[in-house]
Structure formats: C-alpha cells, structure tokens
C-alpha cells in the first residue's frame, strides 16, 4: 500500500509495518500539501496520515477540507494531538472548556469529509503516560513522540487501514495445548491449567476474549497436534472450557504438518488463505507455518500466559468499524455450514440437494438498517466482486440505487449476502459473499438487477475475483429452487 505521512514533527519511526512509505519532512508538510506538483502528489498515496503536535494542530485542521477535496481517492486519517505536557490545572475553567468544545467542532467537520477518519490516538498513547514523550529528543530533533508512542500510533494506523481496506481477518486458527489451556491433553484432563482462579484464569480469560471475537464476526478453527477424540473430551467436558465444539467452524486435530492443516481449513471454509490468523505457543510451529504459508498471519504467544490477553488485544487484525448483524452471527453461520456440507455429501444429485435446502431470499432497497452491511460487503468481498470498488456508508448514500439480498435455508439464516450498486446507469459493483455461491442466488439477483434497472455492466479483473470472472462468462442459470419471499426491486 502507498502510505504518505504528513506531520508537523519528526515521525520517521512510524514505519513499523510493511508499506511503500512517503514521509515528508516536518518543515515541508504544508508545501507538499499545497503545491500542485509536489512529491506527495506524484506519490499518489492510497492512505494519508496527518499527524500534528499540539501547537501545529490548528493549522493542520485549517487545511483539512481542502486536503479531503484535493485527494478524493485517498483515505485520510487524522487525529487530535495528544497533550503530553504536564497538567497544570485540575478544574476546568471556561477557557479550558472552550478548548474541549473546539475538539468537538473538529469531529463535526471530519464527519462532513467522506474520505477522512479520526484515529483514537488518546487511547493508544495514554497508557504510556510520561513515557510517550522525551523532551530531550523533542529539543534535539523535534521528535514529539517517543518510539514507544510511535509504535502504538503505528498499530492504530495499521488497524485503521485494515478496517478501511477490507483487510479485517476472517478466521482465527488456534492451537490447543498451552494455548487454550495450560499443559498437555496427554497428561490427563484433571492436570490441565484452566480455572477461574490463579494462573489457570489466564487461560480462561484468554478464551473469554476469543469468544468475544467470535461474537464480533471472527470465525474460529482449531489446528492442533493431538488425538482428536481425547482433545474433544477436554473441550466438551472440562468444567472451565468456555469454547465448546459448537463454537468451532472447522478443525484439524491430528499429527499432520500444521501448514497442511491450515490450508485445508481455509479450503473447507472457502475463505482466502490470507484471511487467516494462526496462534500457537510453539516457535517451531509458528516458523514452519510462516515458511510455507507466508500469507497467513502467524502470532507467537508470549512465554507467560498472563500476557496472552494483552497480546491478543494488541493485534491489528480483528477490529470492525461498526458491527453488523451478520458479524454477530458469522461464526454460527459457518458452524451451520459444516452441517450443511455433511448433509450435501449424502446427496448424489446436487440439484436434489438444492431442492431439499429450501432456499428463501428477500431483496431490499438500501436503508438505515442495511447500509453498514452493504458497505462492509463491498469492502470485504474478494472472490465474487465485479469491480473491486469499495464504498463507505457516506459514499453509498450518494448513489442512485443500491439493492441487497438476504438468504435463508432450513439450516439457518445467513442474513444479507449480496449487494448491487448502480449509479449514473452503471453497475459500479456487484458483490456476493462466497459462502452462498453456487446455489443460484447470484444468477437470480443478477438477472433481476439487469431486468429491472438495465445498467451498463462494468467489470474490472482483480487478482482475487476469479469467481466473478467465471460467473460473467458462463451461462446464467434459472434457479427455480429458490423462493423470492419479497422484493423491493
């Protein structure tokens, strides 16, 4: 990604994550912003971070609107400056109150710029306290923040990029021994460290956070070198297990190489291999998965389980901007999908299976209830995506017509799984969640959009949209096995 940083202070230490960086000198940020043919303009940034110290903020703020207009295709992140001078007052005088109101007017103005987001730097940096600032380097080289504070800012910027560019990871693949509990299954269920008290609580709390991630739309899977039967005995019977069999959408508990297992899990769930995060306590396993599957994010747990929760919370992979209903139910849907696939294997004829599924769909126009989900579909769908265009909620509000489709069968409700965006007579994007592909829903929705709106079809090949490429050239089906409950189209 091309990431430009404009700052009123020395910010070179921000380059923690791998990107193509452009970092302006602190004395030049204004020139870079204003000159028509500056290095910044030539760099053509996809992301711009605008970061200021306390004194420079008013000037940065002043340029924000024009900047948003000058770089309409860049995603711009800005933050209010974190005040790190010693506090000189305890009571809020009128003047102090005014400076707080000033900040709220800042947030108000940001809301009107559709490509600008505010980073919550206060939260990221405040826990460092006085370690966020080192006056020596400030006077020597105008370094406003210490490296620790810049690391925290870098984590936050990366999280924000992952959210806005649809790179939120979809699936967490977990080891078992010394990850979900302390000790080895082979040592016996009664000897495992997992409880609501003492060191065992560290594992219990770790599971609690993982469960929260599942509730926010992260799919859970297990990859462990163990005997499957013995492992499930612990998972089902240990009194302090929070995560049970029904919380996992897939598992490989065997003695195969873990990279092999992880590839199989990605295939089974039908998600991209680059949307997995693998967590293990063994450096050997982490390194071997990294070596064979560089696209999987591998996280080595700290030696001390007391730090597991902190480690999990610092990862920039799982935060969502706004949780949709689909997020909250996603893990459950994938668990359902496992039962659906088991059933499908018992049918010899795929068509008979589709009839038996009893698919119901509803087509909705865009409204306040579904707009977040539609934005999310454009941001997160890779495989069945006509143009790769992503739309924020603000951008969607300006489109001529936007429709979405929800899916339900006898195994459960999948919620809104597809969307079409039409503007100026052009189909700007057509996306469908891959978990329902191949059941005719894409054919049905596409033909309805074409029949009713007759838009000009736009198609842009991307590295990942093979499923859409195949669809656009193949013959469309007439899916009589699907029932349209209602349609606003």
């Amino acid at each position, binding site marked *: 990604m091309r990431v430009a940083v404009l700052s009123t202070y*020395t910010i*070179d*230490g921000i380059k923690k994550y791998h990107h193509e960086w452009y970092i302006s000198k602190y004395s030049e940020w204004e020139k870079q912003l204003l000159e028509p043919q500056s290095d910044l303009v030539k760099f053509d940034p996809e992301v711009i971070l605008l970061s200021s110290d306390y004194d420079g903020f008013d000037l940065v703020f002043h340029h924000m609107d024009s900047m948003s207009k000058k770089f309409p295709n860049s995603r711009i992140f800005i933050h209010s400056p974190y005040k790190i001078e010693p506090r000189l007052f305890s009571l809020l005088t009128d003047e102090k109150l005014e400076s707080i109101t000033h900040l709220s007017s800042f947030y108000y103005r940001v809301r009107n710029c559709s490509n600008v987001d505010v980073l919550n730097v206060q939260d990221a940096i405040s826990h460092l306290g006085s370690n966020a600032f080192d*006056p*020596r*380097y400030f*006077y*020597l*080289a105008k*370094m406003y923040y*210490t*490296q620790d504070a810049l690391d925290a800012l870098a984590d936050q910027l990366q999280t924000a990029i992952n959210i806005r560019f649809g790179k939120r990871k979809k699936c967490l693949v977990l080891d078992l021994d010394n990850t979900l509990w302390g000790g080895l299954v082979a040592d016996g269920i009664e000897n495992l460290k997992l409880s609501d008290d003492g060191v065992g609580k560290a594992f219990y709390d770790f599971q609690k956070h993982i469960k929260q991630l599942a509730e926010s739309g992260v799919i859970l899977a297990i990859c462990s070198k163990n005997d499957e039967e013995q492992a499930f005995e612990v998972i089902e019977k240990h009194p302090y297990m929070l995560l049970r069999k029904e919380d996992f959408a897939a598992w490989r508990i065997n003695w195969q190489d873990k990279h092999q297992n992880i590839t199989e899990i990605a295939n089974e769930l039908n998600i991209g291999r680059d949307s997995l995060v693998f967590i293990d306590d063994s450096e050997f396993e982490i390194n071997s998965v990294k070596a064979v599957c560089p696209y999987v994010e591998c996280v080595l747990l700290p030696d001390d389980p007391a730090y597991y929760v902190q480690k999990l919370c610092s990862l920039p992979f799982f935060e969502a901007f706004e949780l949709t209903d689909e997020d909250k139910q996603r893990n459950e849907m994938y668990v359902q999908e496992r039962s659906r696939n088991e059933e499908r294997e018992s049918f010899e004829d795929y068509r008979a299976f589709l009839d038996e599924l009893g698919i119901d769909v509803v087509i909705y126009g865009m409204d306040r209830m579904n707009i977040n989900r539609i934005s999310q579909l454009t941001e997160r769908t890779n495989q069945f995506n006509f143009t790769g265009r992503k739309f924020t909620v603000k951008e969607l509000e300006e489109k001529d017509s936007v429709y979405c489709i929800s899916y339900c069968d006898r195994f459960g409700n999948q919620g809104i799984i597809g969307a079409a965006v039409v503007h100026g007579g052009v189909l700007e994007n057509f996306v469908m969640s891959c978990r329902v592909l191949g059941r005719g829903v894409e054919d049905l929705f596409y033909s309805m959009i074409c029949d009713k709106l007759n838009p000009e079809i736009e198609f842009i090949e991307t590295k990942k949209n093979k499923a859409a490429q195949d669809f656009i050239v193949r013959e469309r089906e007439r899916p009589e096995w699907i029932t349209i409950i209602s349609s606003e189209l």
Partner: protein
Amino acid sequence: MQSLQLDEMPSIDDTMETLEKWDSLNHLHLMMDLERELNLKFNSEKIPDMVSVKAILKEIENE
C-alpha cells in the same frame, strides 16, 4: 547495530564520517536504541557530540 544497518560490528575508529548510514536521523535512533539496551539516559547536550565510537564509549563509561 540495526539503527545503522550494519552487517558487522563497527571498529573502534569508526565515526559518522566513515559509516554511510550514520546520518543525523539514524544517529538519534542509535542513541535511543543504546539507551533502551543499556537502560540509561544520555544528556541531551552530549548527544550531538557522540558521533564516533570512541566518544560513545567514553560517554557510556561516564554514566
């Protein structure tokens, strides 16, 4: 030696002049890395002068 992007240890006679990556910005990163490694803090007035291996060693001894 990560802050100066060196493959091997510098010699006792190396200075800002002899090492290509030892520029003014990397100098500060070097100082911060040393402070973190050795758990000490250099005086800000001394930092601009610590631009040779000898000067750095002398300052560490004084601390």
